[in-house]
């Protein structure tokens, strides 16, 4: 019952509001009803009490009246008899007249006691209302007369007595007798009696205005019912026999007590459970003083309160009718509130299905619903705008994502990814990884065999991210590669690339770049660093060297930056590790970087592995260090090792670093032009020793002269004495010279080529000499090593040597 009700109420605001309004009104009504009931109840009860008490009094008074008259009659008669002897005739007349005058009195008797019979001329006079009128009879009293209470009691009590009521079969009515003893000198000589018919009693009691359900009872001083609504109880039952007949002992005891209280001689009032109908009833009782009878007026509480109950019922009916009427405005209010809400909910449903053009219901009031509608309207506009924004943003994001993936594709497509890269050269163990970040960082690496011996290596990092970075990376990578192919000199290549990039660099982006050439035969590594993280070289011994000669500026940042070559010798199985800051700056969630220490530790632990395994495990280590933190930059590393390198002694290493083996001849001169003759002599000497063609020798000589004069003239601004060392190598197909000085840094290879189209006076000094060297020699490289300029020139001595010098 309750659950469906709750469900019903929950289903609609209309139901709930209406129910609440009705409930509220109903509660108020109940309170009013309750208050009026209880306040009126007491009033009604006390007034009923008053009324009932008054009624009892008046009824007792009415019962008392005939009794009183009877008593008076008897007493008067007795007084006469006491004083003088009445003769039969007089007494008969007295009785006749009394009966005539007092219609209530049925019969009257004067009876002499046994002892005094003979004192008068009659023994017993009895007058009564017979069928033929009043009759008076003089008769002999029988034994039984003296044994009856009407004689017996006054005789022995010697005082007037009302007998218990009795049923008189002659008159066929209830009768009660008042007996008055005539006492002379302490002895009862006669008894005067009057029989009072109680026919009027029922009439009197039955016409008492007791109201519905009310009843009167009259019982004798023995408790015997004289009058009772149930006539069969009269003269048979007593108030105590009624109590006795109750099955419930408690009820029995309380009724018994009620009887005792009522017979106590005092008027009273009690609430009790009526044995006949089991209703809670009120009884007012009051003794009839003459006879000791008790009159009780009983009214069921229900009856007393009936008017009140009726009033309350009417009130309740009116209330219910009122509630029913209230239902109409309540529903009206609820509907007026919820109708716009319903419209709003329809509109909201359409809104939710994406129809933002729906028009919201128009609310004319300024109440909460109107405010809600306003809010909805605002929400609708906001949503529309928001969705438009979102659409745009999403498109932009998609575009960005597209760009990013494009960038990634560019990045990944541009770096060599085929491993092992040189299947024909098993001695070269090379591997590289590039793990792009979500936003492409613009890392790059590159490698390529320039010839059988020389391996070009590069690793770089473009500043910035995304497509611009990847584009710059592509440009940088391509530029560097092509430059390296032509100049075969890291420092010069970087210088050229830098110039290319820094020119019109409006984006202000730059690239850090490490670039190197490794002679895979000799292990000589020539490298130049443009602002990139210094790589690590792991010796087989476990020693880790950091190639951290001061790096130059990043590519593209400044124009005309000079980069210098450094060189170092790698031995068999030494591992060169190139990396970008994506490795060392990889962060974990608590912002701790992997750092160089992490990298060094990894190298120490895993440096013995093959390049591939080493880098793969490095990738895992970095990843585990990040432990879920988002990768912010590309992680790029390149590792290379030569498995077989021609060994060279450590003592000559400083000279062999560029060529791999010790020179065939060395010449040291001072920085004096006079020393040039020694150079010429030494060359010719070498030409003879090494069996060089004359044309080549001449070109070499000229080239040397050009360069050494240049060095002597400009390298040492302090004008003090310095040594210039010349070294020569004769390989099977090449003659190579190195010129080393400790002068100020000067990279001739970085010099722009002489514009030979210009008139001679506009050309740069020294430019021609360098131009000459470039023209005649097959290779012309520069490196700076331990504060020394080392220029290397080489000439192939295979068939085409005749072409040189043209």
């Amino acid at each position: 019952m309750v659950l469906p009700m709750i469900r019903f109420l929950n289903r609609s605001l209309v139901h709930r509001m209406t129910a609440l309004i009705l409930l509220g009104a109903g509660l108020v009504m109940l309170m009013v009803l309750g208050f009026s009931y209880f306040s009126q109840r007491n009033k009604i009860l006390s007034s009923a009490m008053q009324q009932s008490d008054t009624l009892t009094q008046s009824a007792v008074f009415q019962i008392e009246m005939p009794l009183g008259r009877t008593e008076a009659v008897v007493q008067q008669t007795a007084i006469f008899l006491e004083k003088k002897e009445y003769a039969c005739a007089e007494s008969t007349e007295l009785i006749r007249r009394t009966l005539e005058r007092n219609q209530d009195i049925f019969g009257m008797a004067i009876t002499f006691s046994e002892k005094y019979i003979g004192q008068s001329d009659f023994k017993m006079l009895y007058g009564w209302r017979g069928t033929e009128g009043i009759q008076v009879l003089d008769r002999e009293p029988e034994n039984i007369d003296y044994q009856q209470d009407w004689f017996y009691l006054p005789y022995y009590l010697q005082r007037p007595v009302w007998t218990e009521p009795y049923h008189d079969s002659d008159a066929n009515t209830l009768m009660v007798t008042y007996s008055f003893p005539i006492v002379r000198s302490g002895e009862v000589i006669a008894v005067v009696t009057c029989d009072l018919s109680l026919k009027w009693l029922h009439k009197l009691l039955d016409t008492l205005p007791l109201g519905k359900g009310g009843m009167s009872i009259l019982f004798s001083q023995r408790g015997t019912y004289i009058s009772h609504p149930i006539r069969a109880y009269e003269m048979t039952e007593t108030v105590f026999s009624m109590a006795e007949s109750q099955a419930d002992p408690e009820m029995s005891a309380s009724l018994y007590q009620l009887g005792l209280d009522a017979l106590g001689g005092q008027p009273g009032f009690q609430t009790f459970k009526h044995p006949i109908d089991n209703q809670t009833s009120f009884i007012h009782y009051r003794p009839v003083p003459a006879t000791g009878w008790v009159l009780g007026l009983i009214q069921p509480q229900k009856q007393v309160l009936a008017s009140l109950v009726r009033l309350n019922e009417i009130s309740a009916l009116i209330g219910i009718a009122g509630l029913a009427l209230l239902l109409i405005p309540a529903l009206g209010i609820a509907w007026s509130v919820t109708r716009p809400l319903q419209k709003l909910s329809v509109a909201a449903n359409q809104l939710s299905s994406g129809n933002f053009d729906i028009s919201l219901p128009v609310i004319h009031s300024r109440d909460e619903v109107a405010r809600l509608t306003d809010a909805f309207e605002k929400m609708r506009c906001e949503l529309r705008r928001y969705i438009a924004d979102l659409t745009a943003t999403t498109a932009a994001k998609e575009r960005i994502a597209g760009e990013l993936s494009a960038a990634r594709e560019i990045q990944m497509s541009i770096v060599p990814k085929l491993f092992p890269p040189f299947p024909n050269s098993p001695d070269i163990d090379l591997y590289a990884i590039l793990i792009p970040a979500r936003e492409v960082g613009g890392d790059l690496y590159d490698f390529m065999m320039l010839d059988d011996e020389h391996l070009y290596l590069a690793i770089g990092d473009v500043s910035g991210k995304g497509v611009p970075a990847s584009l710059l990376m592509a440009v940088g990578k391509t530029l560097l590669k092509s430059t390296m192919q032509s100049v075969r000199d890291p420092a010069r290549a970087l210088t050229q690339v830098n110039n290319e990039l820094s020119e019109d660099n409006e984006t202000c982006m730059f690239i850090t770049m490490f670039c190197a050439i490794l002679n895979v035969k000799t292990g000589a590594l020539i490298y130049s660093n443009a602002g990139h993280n210094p790589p690590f070289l792991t010796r087989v011994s476990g020693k880790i060297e950091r190639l951290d000669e001061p790096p130059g500026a990043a590519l593209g940042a400044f124009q005309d930056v000079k980069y210098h070559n450094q060189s170092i010798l790698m031995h068999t199985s030494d591992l060169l590790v190139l990396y970008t800051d994506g490795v060392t700056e990889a962060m974990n969630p608590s912002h701790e970087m992997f750092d160089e220490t992490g990298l060094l530790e990894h190298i120490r632990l895993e440096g013995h592995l093959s390049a591939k395994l080493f880098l793969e495990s490095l990738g895992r280590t970095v990843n585990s260090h990040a432990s879920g933190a988002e990768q912010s930059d590309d992680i790029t590393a390149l590792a290379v090792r030569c498995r077989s390198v021609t060994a060279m002694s450590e003592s000559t290493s400083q000279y062999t670093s560029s060529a791999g083996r010790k020179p065939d001849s060395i010449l040291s001169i001072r920085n004096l032009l006079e020393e040039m003759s020694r150079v010429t002599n030494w060359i010719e000497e070498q030409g003879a020793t090494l069996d060089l063609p004359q044309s080549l020798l001449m070109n070499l000589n000229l080239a040397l002269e050009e360069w050494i004069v240049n060095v002597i003239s400009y390298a040492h601004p302090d004008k003090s004495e310095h040594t210039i060392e010349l070294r020569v190598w004769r390989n099977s197909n090449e003659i190579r010279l190195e010129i080393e000085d400790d002068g100020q840094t000067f990279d001739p290879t970085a010099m722009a080529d002489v514009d030979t189209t210009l008139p001679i006076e506009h050309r740069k000094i020294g430019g021609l000499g360098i131009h000459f060297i470039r023209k005649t020699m097959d290779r012309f490289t520069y490196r700076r090593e331990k504060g020394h300029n080392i220029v290397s020139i080489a000439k192939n001595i295979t068939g085409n040597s005749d072409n040189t010098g043209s």
Partner: protein
Amino acid sequence: MSVHLNILKRTCYISLLSLFLLILLELSTAVGMAQSLEPVKLTLHWQHQSQFAGYYMALSKGFYAQEGLDVNIMRGGPDVRVGEMLKSGKTDFASFMLSSALEERAGGLPMVQLTQIVNRSNFLLAVWKNPAEGVSINELSDLNGRKITVWLQDFRAPYLALFASKNVQPVILPQYYTLSLFLHKGALACSVMRYNEYHTLRQSGLQDNDLKIFSLHDLGIHLPEDGIYCLDETWKQRPETCRKFVSASLKGWTYARDHEEETLKEVMKYVRKENLPTNRMHMNWMLHEILASIFPAKNDDWVFGKISRTTYDSVSKMLIQYGGLKTAPPFEDFVKDGAAND
């Protein structure tokens, strides 16, 4: 129209004929029954009440009819002189108090006892505990010199025997049909029957703390009460009828004992018919008490329906001494038909 009338007439004839036949049948049965049953009259020594419940039950349950008797139970009362009815042959059997029967016998009525129904005495003396301010009655001796009411003649005898045995000398006023003098406190004590007046007092609103009750039986005054009597002549001429009557009467009492509720209903029928001023609760009490004084309990020394010689002897002695009884017949002359319990 005439057809309809004919049908109506015919229906009437048939109906009348059937009715006549039916009445004839009923009459013949009744006559037949009457012929087979011996008509017998029983007169009770007081008005109809539970005191005589056994006879009502013997009649209503057909115990008399089973014995071949058609019993007519007639009420007694102050206006009925049972002895005279017996003497004149207006009744065959009569119930008497033993003391009244002995008095009748001594008065010259040749009657004998057929059965002793009530063996335990129900005589009590009810005394106001506190009749007036400062007066309190707790012992019999407190009644010395005080007014009390006691029944007359043979009913007075046990009280006199009691007072004599306890050496108490109250002023004894006559007590007739009501307790009114006692109730008006014109007497401090009155004689009551346990099964009757005692309960009437209670139904008048008197409680245990109002009354002090002395039981004569408990105080050693044994006086068997109701019994069934008939003329010696009846006993001699129709002993079988007497025996049958007694047997059916005792059966009625036994039935009453076993069916108190049903018996009470039957009693109330008699009471209502006579329009007697009593009520059901009173009859209920009376039935209960009378049965208790008829059927011996474990500790009682009498036998149902019989009287012992010693009791008879002591009763006759007491009645002679205190009840003004002139003479008592020998036990064998007075007690017949197995009522004797030697």
